[in-house]
């Protein structure tokens, strides 16, 4: 319904490089994924975060947010897209 957002367990963040992304994901037990052909943007996934929720999650990614090498972090929100 309008105004209802669904959040997914995956997070993206902006870093300085792939090696740093992997080291951070190892420490925080996240899985790192490449986002298409975008450089310095990584997609993080943690099995302990609620898979799909109507509330923004405040789970294990808090460790990610606290890392000084992380410039920007955003939880994925499901968007309504329709075929035309």
């Amino acid at each position, binding site marked *: 319904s309008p105004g209802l957002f669904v959040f997914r367990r995956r997070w*993206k963040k902006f870093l300085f490089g792939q090696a740093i992304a992997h080291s951070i994901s190892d420490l925080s037990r996240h899985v790192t994924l490449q*986002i298409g*052909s*975008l450089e310095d943007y990584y997609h993080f996934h943690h099995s302990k975060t609620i898979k799909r929720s109507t509330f923004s999650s405040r789970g294990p990614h808090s460790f990610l947010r606290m890392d000084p090498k992380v410039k920007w972090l955003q939880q994925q929100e499901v968007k309504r897209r*329709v075929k*035309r």
Partner: protein
Amino acid sequence: HVRSNQQFPSFNDPLWSNMWYMHCGERVRHCRSEMNILSAWQRGYTGKNVVVTILDDGIEKNHPDLIQNYDGRASYDVNGDDDDPTPRYDASNENKHGTRCAGEVAASANNSYCIVGIAYNANIGGIRMLDGDVTDVVEAKSLGIRPEHIDIYSASWGPDDDGKTVDGPGVLAKQAFETGIKKGREGKGSIFVWASGNGGKEGDYCSCDGYTNSIYTISISSATETGKKPWYLEECASTLATTYSSGAFYDRKIVTTDLRHRCTDGHTGTSVSAPMATGILALALEANPSLTWRDVQHLIIKTSRPAHMQTTDWRTNGAGRRVSHLFGFGLKDADALVVEAKKWKTVPSQHVCIGSSDKRHTSIPADQPVQMATKTNACADHADQHVVYLEHVVVRVSILHPYRGDLKINLISPSGTNSQLLGKRLHDNSNEGFKNWEFMTVHCWGETAEGEWTLEIFDSLTRIRNPHLQAKLKEWTLILYGTAEYPYNMVNSHHSRSRMLEITASELEPSKAAFYHNQMEIVEDEDEYTAVPGRHGSLTGPCHTECGDQGCDGPDANQCLNCVHFSLGSAKTGRKCVSSCPSGFFEDNTARKCRKCYKGCETCMGRNPNQCTACRRGFYHHQETNTCMTLCPAGYYSEESHKHCLKCHQRCKKCVGEPDKCTVCKDRFSLVGDSCIPECSPGMYFNMEAMRCEGCHPSCQTCAGPGREECIQCAKDFHLHEGRCVPACSEGFYPEEVYSLPHKVCRRCEYNCASCEGSGKNCIKCQEGFSLLSGSCVTNHTCHNADETFCEMVKSNKLCERKLFIQFCCRACLLAG
């Protein structure tokens, strides 16, 4: 119509003859203009070595009409995270969309199956990304799959077209577009084609879709077989061009490939048009693979044709190009596109000039247009940003508004081109306004950027609102894209110039006509039209009949040395003798010259603004002041059949269409329907039967009738609760202030809360079976698996202080200490 070679071999694909949009040249067809695809094929362009992908719900890669051209490297399954884009099959064939779009582009020719794709030798792939949760990451990933391999990404989806959604690409999808145009196709830029929108019936406006409204996407709209607007089509200023699609139920639809190895003749919507445009672009990329993403947009604008696309919205911009909010620059022409593409020279680099933001908060009173002007030198003092010739123009706007759908926004360029950036959207009752929303127009393409730009905002009062709440423009910024040099070389420019000269003055809007008079130098001047000594008598033939007694230098009307009747033009630019002055000029009998009327006048008695006797198209004649105006002033309405400004009823401050169809009333009158009735004092309403003011229910401050359910605003200390005004909210509700209302509204407390204070999240009493914990209600049940380690994790992460986790074994852990 262009060359249609009768010798062109017919295909054996069974639905070839049903592809009506390929055969418009035949007399029996309803479509009157060709997209000239056959002609492009005849030149040998069929999409060879061009790679296209369809961003959608998958592609049936083993469909017999697609298998030959299927390209696995142009495909991916983002939903399933693997290389196989095969759609998920279900009983309703929900995921047929991508396969249908793919067939339009690259179905094989002459294989005795279904149809012939527009680029029937192109490589086709599919990116499965719509059959699952779509997030910013999913979109960014999809838009950036193998940009070095894929040439064109075709998307026929977007945010809801319900007429109330304002949504666009997120941070990452925007980044993917930018990366694509910078690095895709070895630096020439990925081509993103987008369906302009399907919400015509919902009154949607495609500028509220940030994908189709982006400078990086080629926004494609649709026309029916007879060149009309289909019911689903949305309009906006960012639409670049059009292809045929479908219309009402009796109009033919599009034939293409379908799921489960089938064919269909029922494909419809703007989804038809984007892949059709994609196929045509594949032909152009075969003709010239070195085209950049901006070359492609320039080419589309140069070669698309308004012919037979039916709308009154066609206008000519300051660069001489005809453009409409429905069809962009017109119907795509494949033949013209490949011919131009073949000889194309890359346009100069793109400059971006970002104007300074105007942050003055401006109130926008209802029903009165508000104009904000800004003068720009288009960054002339920064060589790397200087924009002389325009491409896209973006206006970034922040507006507060209690009912967003009532807003209309226009942008007027220095050349006078008026783009409607936003139309009224009746279904959009959001109070969120626009926050840094970027509206884009292509209508000023080719014009010069320098000069005065005007943003016009109109807040039309279409529903009952709190009269004290006004819309407010918080900030706006003009962003100009374009080039410092003229973008076309002489070979290329020949075509456009010849097109320009085909436009007659009567076709132009008044402001453009004035501009063109300057461009074509048909300006009058004050110097005398006298004979040149020594040249008289050198002719052997007769002079033009309009030449006077001083003779001529040649046989034409522009070679006279004086005139019998009137002279038109100037000495600098050439003038000629005419028997009567054309429209826009009046006859100065003393000087025997045609002198220009004031801007907007079609005919006039003199050059002053109040001497107009008839107005040009787009202007209304005010008979009391003899002036021409684009908008009738307050107290007058525009009478469309004769284009006059006529007086409203004495009670109306403003009216539309008829004198007593009021939209705004004079002081001491209120609008009811479209009539102005005497205004009643607070707490009263006007009883139409008794024709007198009568009292509202005591709980109402204003009302539409005597009942307690007819309050418009609640009386002091009353709150709105389920349609009534009540002194206090009932249990389980709390009063909350609402931006657009003068009184509070009762909102429900959080789930499981019986009574709350201040906000829904501050519970003071829980429902049975729940206990109060930090303002929330937690279940009385306890968790069985809450061991010591688990509770330590709960404690160290302070989960019980967080609303989301408060049901999360908190009680069990608390009881366990």
